[in-house]
């Protein structure tokens, strides 16, 4: 019967080309808008490191003075240098790393490439195993290099291409700022989306080009970038060890997510100790959020994108209402034929099924064209100058979702018209109007 109804639906389309085109276009527009915004939303709200996002945690402490404190307030979203170095030394997690952003000048040895300016990250050895960064050549540096302020660096694949033509550059030197650093590793293709480890840099931008041990970066006085918040007299040296400033990020990897409570207890204990020592003034007020919770807290999806998603759904809803009306018109126009079919033995259910098949077919056709419109829409998004523009691509899952939404939506739209159609009494008069 399904094949029969499909056949009848197609014939009906051929007979009512204008009306069918109108319905298909309406659904296509709605699907196109909806899928474009949904794809962008999905890309931006995805998990950047699914294999361990529930075991990676971001640490927040509250080192600020009592003055100005509001009860229940969230602590600062970065930590001080002293706290980061202390926690790192105490090594309570499986892996842990402190980090912050920077900008450096790179002067290639080859004279024909001009010196340029690029983003850097100053961090500690565990960064690479903790975030499971792939390496094309070499590895990250070791903990001993952190302690020794070693003159080493890890570079990105793009930088390696640009300066060394893509060869294995491990062991070569690269002048960062004034100082030559020895390359110990070249990263492979690594593009976490979003760049979750530092919410103060371009959240959907590319990974930094140069990674340097934090201690080395202080030694060489390399320029920092990112957010810094100071609350006291820094005496002109905000990056000093004892400066009353938060500007570092601290991540820890635990063996399994169940250990989070224990680690938080450790952080609370640490805060209490700092208070007893007179350095912290407030009661322990710590946070330990895993990757997705941290992204959520930072409202990672820009407001505009969420607004666009709702707009897309609203548009689809209007298109569906449209389709309901047009389907109703289409079916009721044929009430004479429906009456005859009922007289010839079609039960109400059969009429209902026939109408739904017709609605679903319109949905499938609309979904196909809507897919084309969505591809067009995503192309338009990629032309925008936003940081996430290049990520707007339709993948396999979204492709299937497009058709699924189109068919389900059109079936829903067809429910009311089909129900009305099935109420038509069996009649032996074909009203030819």
């Amino acid at each position: 019967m399904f094949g029969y109804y499909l056949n009848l639906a197609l014939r009906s389309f051929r007979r009512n080309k204008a009306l069918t085109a109108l319905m298909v276009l309406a659904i296509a527009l709605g699907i196109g808008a909806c899928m474009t915004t949904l794809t962008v939303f999905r890309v931006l709200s995805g998990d950047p490191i699914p294999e361990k996002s529930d075991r990676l945690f971001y640490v927040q402490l509250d080192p600020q003075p009592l003055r100005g404190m509001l009860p229940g307030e969230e602590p600062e979203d970065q930590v001080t240098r002293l706290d980061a170095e202390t926690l790192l030394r105490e090594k309570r997690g499986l892996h842990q790393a402190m980090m912050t952003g920077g900008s450096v000048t790179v002067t290639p040895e080859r004279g024909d490439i001009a010196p340029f300016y690029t983003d850097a990250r100053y961090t500690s050895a565990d960064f690479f195993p903790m975030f499971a960064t792939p390496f094309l050549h070499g590895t990250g540096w070791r903990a001993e290099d952190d302690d020794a302020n070693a003159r080493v660096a890890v570079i990105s694949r793009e930088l390696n291409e640009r300066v060394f033509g893509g060869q294995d550059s491990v062991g070569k030197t690269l002048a960062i700022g004034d100082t030559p650093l020895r390359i110990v590793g070249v990263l492979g293709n690594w593009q976490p989306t979003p760049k979750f480890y530092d919410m103060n840099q371009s959240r959907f931008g590319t990974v930094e080009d140069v990674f340097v041990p934090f201690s080395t970066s202080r030694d060489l006085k390399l320029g920092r970038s990112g957010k810094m918040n100071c609350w006291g007299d820094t005496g002109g040296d905000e990056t000093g060890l004892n400066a009353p400033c938060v500007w570092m990020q601290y991540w820890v990897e635990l063996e399994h997510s169940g250990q989070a409570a224990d680690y938080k207890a450790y952080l609370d204990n640490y805060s209490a100790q700092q208070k007893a020592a007179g350095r912290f003034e407030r009661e322990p007020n710590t946070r330990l959020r895993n990757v997705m919770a941290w992204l959520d807290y930072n409202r990672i999806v820009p407001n505009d994108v969420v607004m666009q998603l709702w707009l897309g759904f609203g548009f689809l809803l209007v298109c569906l209402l449209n389709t309901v009306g047009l389907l109703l018109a289409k079916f009721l126009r044929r009430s004479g034929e429906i009456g005859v079919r009922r007289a010839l033995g079609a039960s109400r259910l059969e009429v209902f099924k026939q109408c739904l098949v017709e609605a679903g077919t319109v949905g499938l056709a609309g979904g196909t064209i809507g897919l084309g419109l969505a591809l067009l829409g995503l192309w338009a998004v990629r032309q925008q100058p936003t940081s996430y523009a290049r990520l707007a691509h339709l993948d396999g899952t979204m492709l299937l979702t497009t058709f699924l939404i189109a068919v389900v939506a059109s079936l829903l739209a067809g429910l009311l018209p089909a129900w009305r159609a099935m109420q038509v009494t069996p009649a032996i008069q074909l009203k030819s109007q």
Partner: protein
Amino acid sequence: MLDMRQVTKVYRTELVETHALRSLDLRVAEGEFVAVTGPSGSGKTTFLNIAGLLETFTRGEYVLDGVDVKGLNDNARSRLRNEKIGFIFQSFNLIPDLNLFDNCDVPLRYRRMPAAERRQRIEAALTRVGLGSRMKHYPAELSGGQQQRAAIARALAGSPRLLLADEPTGNLDSQMARSVMELLEEINAQGTTIVMVTHDPELAARAQRNVHIVDGIATDLSTGPALGRVPRPGHGAAAAGV
């Protein structure tokens, strides 16, 4: 075949009650050819609708080919209608989008018949009515008489036990009307029960038996063997002779 006892149909709206049929008694035996006559508004259309399971009735009993239709739900009635009854309408009622083959196909599809059997039955039915060469033609391409014959083929394709015809020659000229009536008589001769509603006395005379419905009550005017019930005195208007 068709056994109606005391069938009453009342249409109720907010303000008005209309009695379309009042305690109608009618029996049709298998193989009979019965003509049902009566003035407009008499209830013969309602009778046909009830006979064809297109409408329900308020009171009474109706047994169709041994099946009591009271209490059957919509699905069961549709199935019964599909398997046992063939309809022939005044305005043919062929579906204009479909060709003759597909038109005859419609009732067979609802019976979930396999494709081979459907094809065989349709071809046989269309050939029987003389339209075997026009299977792929659309109704708009045929004359009135041919369309009515196609409708008859559609009615026959499912091997119905009862054919219900509503003014089958109403839209045809006299020559086509005659050929259609000949076809009906032929079908009846082969054993199919036919109940035909008409206002044309000439046509009614060609049937074996006449039933006259006036004000919702049926009166037998059989010219052949009396198989219906004799009108009881005091039951409303007597019929005038034809």
